[in-house]
């Protein structure tokens, strides 16, 4: 985690609030993102992620509160902050009739870059995006992953200090997502401050320095991945995927679980979609005994399973726990 006490935040929001009529979309959001940091903002649909980004990028005026980008006040110096940030939205904001080169050329001219500087930057961005051999193809003929990389290149044309990315990998195949992740890591390495909203928890876990979870417009939890894990009660490591023939919500399983509960202080969650039992260990000690007992229980109760997994908590567990108000204060 970056030093937060001394560095001046690249993005700072103070009591940022947005109301749409009676509906409170963002509620007193306080947020600091420091230079070179990648901050992932997680939340359900409608939690307020996009509204937050819309306010921070001056698209939407806040109902109250204030925010600063690169030290400029977003409310009173909106035009000044515009040169400081780039935006990659979930919609691909590209001109499909134009080529990748023309898309970048347009933005270079829009920002008033000198011709030589613009050409050098376009070349660099096209190379980084892996689009040098497609620079004269029409954008509409590029693959989804290529378009997304071009969108990132477009957002970087003015070499912004801050990059807002609103679900940049949504709808991409795994290979394309990995390429985007590599680009994000490269940008982070180059010192760009990134605010990333995503539904992919794995993505946030992999890329982010810090993670914030927004719920009903409020920043419920904030911290690094290990910090968040510590804050979740009983982050366990056992998931048991049953064979298809045995339903996780069957009577056989219900009675077997009662036996296990009698031995351990357990919290059990049944995932019917994945046909999986998740066991929550409320205390972190005695892990080996606990694992062995659960394993024995499976054989003793004659429960056939496909997968028995233990491990560190992942963000999905964190996210679900937070969504259920299970955060330990």
């Amino acid at each position: 985690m970056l030093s937060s006490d001394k560095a001046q935040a690249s993005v700072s929001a103070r009591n940022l609030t947005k109301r749409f009529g009676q509906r409170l979309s963002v509620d007193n959001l306080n947020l600091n993102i420091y230079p070179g940091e990648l901050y992932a903002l997680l939340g359900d649909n409608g939690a307020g992620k996009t509204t937050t980004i819309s306010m921070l990028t001056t698209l939407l005026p806040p109902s109250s509160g204030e925010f600063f980008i690169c030290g400029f006040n977003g409310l009173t110096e909106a035009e000044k902050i515009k040169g400081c940030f780039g935006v990659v939205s979930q919609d691909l904001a590209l001109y499909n009739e134009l080529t990748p080169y023309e898309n970048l050329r347009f933005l270079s001219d829009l920002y008033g870059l000198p011709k030589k500087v613009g050409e050098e930057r376009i070349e660099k961005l096209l190379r980084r995006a892996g689009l040098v051999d497609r620079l004269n193809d029409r954008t509409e003929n590029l693959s989804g992953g290529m378009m997304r990389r071009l969108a990132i290149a477009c957002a970087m044309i003015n070499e912004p200090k801050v990059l807002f990315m609103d679900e940049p990998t949504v709808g991409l195949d795994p290979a394309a997502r990995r390429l985007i992740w590599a680009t994000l890591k490269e940008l982070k390495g180059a010192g760009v401050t990134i605010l990333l909203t995503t539904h992919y928890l794995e993505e946030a876990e992999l890329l982010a320095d810090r993670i914030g979870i927004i719920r009903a417009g409020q920043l419920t939890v904030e911290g690094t991945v290990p910090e968040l894990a510590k804050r979740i009660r009983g982050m366990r490591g056992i998931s048991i995927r049953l064979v298809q023939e045995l339903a996780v919500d069957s009577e056989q399983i219900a009675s077997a679980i009662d036996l296990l509960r009698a031995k351990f202080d357990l919290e059990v969650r049944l995932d019917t979609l994945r046909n999986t039992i998740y066991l929550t260990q409320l205390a972190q000690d005695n892990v080996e005994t606990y694992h062995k007992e659960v394993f024995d229980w499976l054989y003793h109760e004659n429960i056939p399973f496909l997968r028995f997994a233990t491990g560190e908590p992942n963000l999905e567990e964190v996210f679900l726990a937070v969504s259920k108000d299970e955060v330990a204060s």
Partner: protein
Amino acid sequence: MHAILAIMYKDILQWTRRPLYFGASVMLAILILVCVGNTISGANDMPFGLYDPAGISELSKHLTDTKRFRVRIYDDLEKAKGDLAREKIVALANVSQDPLEDSVQILSGGNNPLIDDQIAMGLLAVLTQRAKELNIPLHSAALFQVNFGLRDYITSGLVAYLCYVLASMNVGFSWIYEWMERTYRQIVFAPGGLNAAIVAKTLTVTLEASLVLWLALGITAPIVGFTLGGNFFGLLGATVLSVFTFACIGLCFACVLKTIRIYTMTVSILGVALMFVSGIITPVKAMPGWEQKLAMLLPMYYAADITKGVMLGIPADYSRDILILISWSVVSLLLARFLLIRSKASI
């Protein structure tokens, strides 16, 4: 300035990549000029029955000369009336066979006032043009000696209407398309991007719509046969100003309506209403009083006045027209800017 030029260059580049859209725009303008002009400027070769077995009158020659009527001669009056009833002819001239009576009775179906009007207009033309030859005390005169027909008059009004149609269409496909594709945000995120976009887009739309209009006029005028007038630069100026005004107004509508479907529907309906109210077809002075007052409030009335003035050379209050069109443009631009700033995110 660099932002304005960048947006204009990009828009024109995009425009050149949509040849189908360009072709469709030109075709639309040509169709309106040809079809609406033809329809409104009156019928040709209307089948007109003539019962004059003794050949007392020379109506057959005079009616044919107008090209409005195709004369069908009848020897049997009852058969002629039967054809009129069966709508094989639109009217029947029954020339009295009594040399002392010297009268003509015009019979029409009577169930279509517009056809009756056309017949009346045609007959009036025959009578006024041939009054001397026919030795009848009927004369027509005009305060201004003009050298154009109804077709020219209608076409010059249609030019104003086309300024509206093409500007609205281009605003829709330029602005709303940009909003739908979200590319508009790229522009807004650049410093000064919003103001640059407003200026650049209205200028580009004006240029594109004007080019389409001029092309359509250039193709259609020599083929169909209407005058473009002798004031070439006046015509350019009038059309550019009219298109610009409608582009600015269209921008306001786009900001409020936001989706291409609702926008297209609204401007189409509005366009038809404007065409009838603003004196494109029927002169404003021939309309009911309240409509005349309404017409004076609408920009198309002034666009039509100015295009008719430069194309036909008829009296027009140019300074008033220009001032009002510019006022509409400025107010619309300011309103559009206000609306855009207010609803950036939702757009």
